[in-house]
């Protein structure tokens, strides 16, 4: 077995961060580039601009038109994806390691020299509109998109795909302005992982991206969250339940305790939600909770989908389990969380794609490389008493509940 190798970080003079992890045991190489151009920078009434920009970026760049760009990337066998999150527009790719240099050269064209042509504007709008319409047919997805909007407010709760109301208001200039305002080297982070020679790949990246200029951060809109309890009527077989409450951010000293508390609630099949809601009562097929950890805030987001008649009981059991965490947790429960985290971290070392994404995002969240040893040390330092103490000091308050289905539900819970 090959030991995990060290990740190195390099700041280019223009502010762009480059993180490189060599992985000698794999034949592939992957990149993950985070550009601070996510949907939080969408202007008022123009929700979806980042998403349209994301569509347009790969439709012609540098000396290649849309078809040539696609053909050349396919020829390299490049598995690629472009996506929008709250803060970032992310461009990632993976292929055989000897094809990485050419893939990075194309990436530089897409980032620094996209055409953003008028011809490609309407098809891009149409494409995003189709995605928005499809989201309407996916109630499981829709409940979490709409829950985020209600529990996070603006800007962090903005939906990454935008909205059907706004999509037709977006003009090509909005997209170009979004690009000009947000595509800047200063807070861009590029993660590289795989069978690479770090000095050589750094030299190439410096040559490709060294001229990328920086600019001040664009403004974001703020709005309070709400409403705390809401229902969307849908004639469906199941009721979708979305439930959220605040926790702590990834940079909080108690982050790992917060993470463990959610793990005990919903980490694996032996976790409390799965056991109480599905295994013991057979109330639903799918129930889970996750800690959505942003840089400056964290929230626990819970989901369940169940037939209409059993939805109220499902919600009641979920709330009971959330509140019951404060009564204490066992050594075994915490040990299972730790075991799961450690094995996930180690197995991540087998995939260049997973590593490239992880090192880039970790740098965004923490501004530092976090080694496996550090994570292990923090996990080992957790005790059941510390986690329970955290839960008592951060009980699930300020709940947001959103349901989608034929009938709304009651929040049957003693107020804390």
């Amino acid at each position: 077995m090959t030991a995990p190798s060290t990740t190195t970080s390099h700041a280019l003079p223009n502010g762009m961060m480059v993180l490189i992890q060599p992985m000698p045991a794999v034949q592939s190489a992957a990149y993950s580039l985070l550009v601070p151009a996510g949907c939080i920078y969408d202007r008022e009434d123009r929700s979806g601009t980042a998403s349209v920009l994301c569509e347009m970026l790969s439709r012609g760049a540098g000396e290649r038109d849309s078809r040539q760009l696609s053909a050349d990337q396919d020829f390299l066998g490049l598995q690629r994806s472009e996506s929008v999150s709250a803060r970032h527009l992310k461009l990632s790719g993976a292929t055989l390691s000897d094809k990485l240099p050419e893939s990075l050269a194309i990436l530089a064209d897409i980032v620094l020299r996209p055409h953003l042509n008028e011809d490609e504007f309407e098809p891009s709008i149409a494409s995003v509109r189709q995605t928005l319409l499809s989201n309407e047919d996916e109630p499981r997805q829709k409940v979490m998109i709409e829950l985020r909007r209600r529990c996070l407010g603006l800007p962090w709760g903005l939906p990454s795909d935008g909205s059907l109301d706004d999509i037709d208001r977006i003009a090509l200039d909005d997209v170009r302005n979004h690009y000009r305002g947000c595509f800047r080297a200063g807070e861009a982070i590029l993660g590289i992982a795989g069978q690479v020679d770090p000095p050589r790949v750094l030299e190439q990246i410096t040559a490709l991206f060294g001229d990328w200029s920086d600019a001040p951060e664009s403004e974001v809109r703020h709005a309070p969250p709400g409403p705390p309890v809401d229902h969307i009527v849908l004639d469906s077989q199941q009721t979708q339940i979305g439930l959220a409450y605040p926790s702590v951010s990834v940079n909080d000293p108690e982050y790992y305790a917060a993470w463990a508390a959610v793990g005990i609630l919903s980490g694996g099949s032996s976790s409390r939600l799965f056991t109480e809601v599905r295994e013991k009562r057979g109330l639903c097929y799918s129930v889970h909770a996750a800690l959505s950890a942003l840089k400056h805030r964290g929230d626990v987001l819970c989901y369940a989908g169940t037939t209409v008649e059993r939805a109220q009981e499902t919600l009641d059991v979920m709330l009971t389990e959330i509140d019951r965490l404060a009564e204490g947790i066992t050594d075994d429960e915490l040990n299972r969380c730790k075991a799961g985290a450690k094995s996930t971290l180690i197995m991540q070392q087998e995939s260049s794609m997973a590593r490239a994404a992880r090192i880039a995002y970790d740098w965004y969240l923490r501004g530092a490389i976090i080694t496996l040893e550090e994570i292990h040390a923090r996990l080992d330092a957790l005790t059941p008493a510390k986690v329970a103490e955290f839960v008592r000091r951060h009980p699930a308050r300020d709940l947001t509940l959103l349901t989608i289905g034929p009938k709304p539900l009651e929040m049957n819970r003693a107020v804390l």
Partner: protein
Amino acid sequence: MQFFETRLGNGLQVIAEINPHVHSVAVGFFVKAGARDESSEVSGVSHFLEHMAFKGFGDVTAEDVNRIFDDIGANYNASTGEEVTQFYAAILPEYLPRAFELLAGMMRPNLAESDFDMEKQVILEEIGMYADLPGFTVYEKAMQAHFVGHPLGQSILGSTESISALGVDQMRAYHADRYRAGNIVLAVAGNTTWDEILDLANQYCASWSGGIPERRVFPAAHPPTSQFLHQPTIQQEHLMCMLPAPDAHSPLRYAAELLSVIVGDDSGSRLYWEILDPGYADSADLGYSEYLGCGAYLSYLCCAPEEAANNLRRLRAVLDDIQLHGATPQEFERARNKVAARVVLSGERPMGRLSSLGGNWLYREAYQSVRDDLDLIQSLHLDDLRRLLDEFPLTITTTCGLGPLESVESGN
């Protein structure tokens, strides 16, 4: 990288690809049991049985199963399809014995009546969940129509009626028949040793009853059909078109895989440029599925209802053009490179290797390393594509729709 294989006295097939350079090991039991093996009275039993495998064996309870998998940080799951039920886990090498004991035990579950009654509720919830997913519903509808009168058209989940009426004795009888050792492949990929695998297999699997149950394999007729389910509350029209394709033993199946990339991959394919790039649909793809005795291309279109007829016309035009002119050498080369990169990337993780390893053995009793796969992809030429098109012309035989439209008139 080393490959080993053997067969225990009871007929259980054991295969392993040992790779000391990875951090984990993946182990899976692949059972030749799926929707196609069910009579109409027990429709959905294979999938329900997959759930019941997690409910305990011997004196190990359902809570124990969940707890132990979590204790060892296993990444584990199970799935049921038309022809195969599989159970698998990826773990760090030191936990292989524990994971193996659990997975092997799950092949001989207690099937207690109280667990059966409780889990039935979960299965009914799962059926309800999928009923709200138009993309899945139209897939099931299209499979039923394309394989009408053939076992491959049978539903994986079953219906609310068939599951409600199912009794635990029917499941026990089905299990006793389909889960005989000769009907199961044990596959392992990753960081372990062949000796360890042999020891574990002998310890936990040698006592299983042997034998190989019958499975009827025959071609399907595919009478042309067009069926629409009118659901005005759905926003988009969800369309599934199906065409006959090579079966799991056909030498043309590699060409069929490449054809599906050229025509219907999610980037740079014919359908991408004709339908997705201009923004005419949210999804437009073509995939290839191989089964025993049959194969199929499946094309899924999801679009605004007013574009549905046009998109079906565009799909037909793409298929007609490929049928007549084949692919260009450049697009053929690009498709080969894409598939090669995917083989390498998915093969880097033991979990990725496991499904390819198990699937190949289950269907063909053949081992192919990543290198073998790459050589095979490289050896394909445009002539192979021509042979494929001559033998399996790209004619849509099944069209199913779900959404606001009552029918789609797309002309021919």
